[in-house]
């Protein structure tokens, strides 16, 4: 196990370097920061001066080396747009994002797991049909549509919830539901499908024949065996929920990292993009590590050689 973890940490570091390099290269291919950041009426000389001042005239690899050397020391450079340390800009947005993403993940799991199990057990009944419809809506209703409709109903019509912005728990409910809808639907349908598989297996019959109560059979034995795909998907949704909740954040004017990243990308604010990618990279690497460990907990036969 220790060897697995050591190797894994090493590989994770390589992943972060890989992502940084790739993103650096892709941004470089996608356009020049000076072109975007200078005002429309700027002269070509001013644009060129900006380029030279910020080192954008240097060859790509030299720029990357310059960035990497500083990044190793924790310095991601100064945001071109905000004129502040890029990492500070990103970390400021992290708590709000973690709150919304965490709540949405919690909501989707709390909603999806009981319904997914129920749908499989009561296959073919009205409960199954109901979850089918919910899942369908969750997967195919555009995020902004759901967000704006919720907002019109709860925010404007009934005035139960604040329309947008951040503040208390109240501000999180509508964006939370909006963000959770897709993941919740996916987890629910996936769980139903893998539960259906598991329910036909022999070991459940064995468990039942031992006289275990049905609930124990379902939740302890069956769910445990059906959980692997669900756990995989939950972990996969962590990255998008932190960094890719752009539409939800825009619709609800929520001060999260998705909006920040979007602004940074539109402005070709390379330092902020890199700091963002670093933070998200760590979240992805960690969540996938945790999943790999969770697999072993769910199915002790799994070994990583």
């Amino acid at each position, binding site marked *: 196990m220790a060897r697995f973890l050591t190797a894994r940490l090493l*590989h994770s570091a390589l992943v972060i370097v890989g992502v940084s390099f*790739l*993103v650096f290269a892709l941004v470089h291919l996608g356009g020049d920061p000076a072109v975007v950041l200078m005002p429309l009426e700027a002269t070509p000389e001013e644009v060129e001066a900006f380029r030279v001042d910020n080192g954008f005239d240097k060859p790509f690899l030299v720029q990357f080396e310059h960035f990497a050397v500083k990044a190793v020391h924790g310095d991601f450079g100064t945001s071109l747009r905000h004129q502040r340390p890029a990492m500070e800009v990103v970390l400021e947005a992290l708590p709000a994002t973690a709150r919304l993403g965490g709540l949405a993940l919690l909501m989707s799991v709390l909603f999806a797991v009981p319904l997914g199990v129920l749908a499989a057990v009561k296959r073919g009944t009205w409960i199954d049909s109901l979850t089918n419809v919910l899942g369908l809506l969750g997967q195919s209703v555009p995020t902004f549509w759901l967000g*704006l409709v919720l907002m019109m109903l709860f925010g404007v019509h009934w005035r139960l919830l604040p329309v947008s912005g951040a503040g208390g728990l109240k501000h999180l409910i509508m964006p939370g539901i909006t963000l959770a809808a897709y993941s919740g639907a996916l987890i629910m349908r996936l769980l139903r499908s893998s539960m259906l*598989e598991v329910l036909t297996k022999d070991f459940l019959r064995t468990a039942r024949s031992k006289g275990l109560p049905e609930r124990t059979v379902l939740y302890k034995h069956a769910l445990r065996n059906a959980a692997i795909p669900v*756990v995989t*998907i939950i972990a996969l949704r962590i*990255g998008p929920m932190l960094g890719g909740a752009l539409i939800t954040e825009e619709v609800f004017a929520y001060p999260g990292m998705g909006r920040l990243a979007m602004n940074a990308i539109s402005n070709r604010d390379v330092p902020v993009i890199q700091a963002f990618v670093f933070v998200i990279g760590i979240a992805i690497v960690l969540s996938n590590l945790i999943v790999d460990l969770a*697999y072993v907990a769910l199915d002790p*036969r799994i070994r990583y050689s």
Partner: protein
Amino acid sequence: MFRKLIRNAGALLSLIVLMTVVLAGLFAPLVSPHNPTDQQAARRLMPPAWAEHGSQEYPLGTDQLGRDILSRMIYGARISLLVGVAAVLVSGVVGVALGLISGYYGRWLDSLIMRLADIQLGVPTLILALAVVAVLGPGLRNVILVLGLTGWVTYGRLVRGEVLSIRQSEYVTSARALGSTDGHIIWRHVLPNIMPSIIVVATFEFARMIINEASLSFLGLGVTPPTPTWGGMIADGRTYIYNAWWVSTMPGIAIVLTVLAANVFGDWVRDVLDPQLRR
């Protein structure tokens, strides 16, 4: 099988819906009531026929430039279905293959493929898309490329997780002991077991790809206006949702119906093909 299909009304209905959508798209010039790009100021934002001020002439209403929404949806089916199916196929085939290799063979292959997946997840789609536009230029092929590239990870990780567990199951170990080849084991024992999960994810991705095509087209990557797509219509109608809901809702309903039909039909096919689940 055909008789079974008739017996199952839901499956039959869903097949009809799917066929209608596909055929309408294929024969769009023949079946659409209007030219999808014919704009006219006088009939902007007309509501659907059944609503007040609606007109039979434009059954589902008109959009912000006065174009017939039904006709645009019929034409839009072409690109949207193509993008949805192609992107799901590309990402699905790549992802399932890599996931199988990763999970079944393990060791350094597993590490390599999964860390590549981590890198892929870490790169924001928007950045990838902008680079593709800048380097490869616009085009439908590149849209599918970007969607496929960003989509494979979900299948890859999902398949690999399940294979890790199945690999150690009794029937696989006994098959191995009996001297079955890896290919045989994967084909006969592993793949059928993970198929249900793959199908669930594929239908989810299908809907998402159709919607996401529009955001890539906004970047100049894909389809140029005024060519209609469902995703593009939904996105264009976004700001009209409070005063002309039909502009973005109608193509949204088209996606819901298509996905519903695909789900029901997919379930039915699986039930027929997978004898385990039949009771």
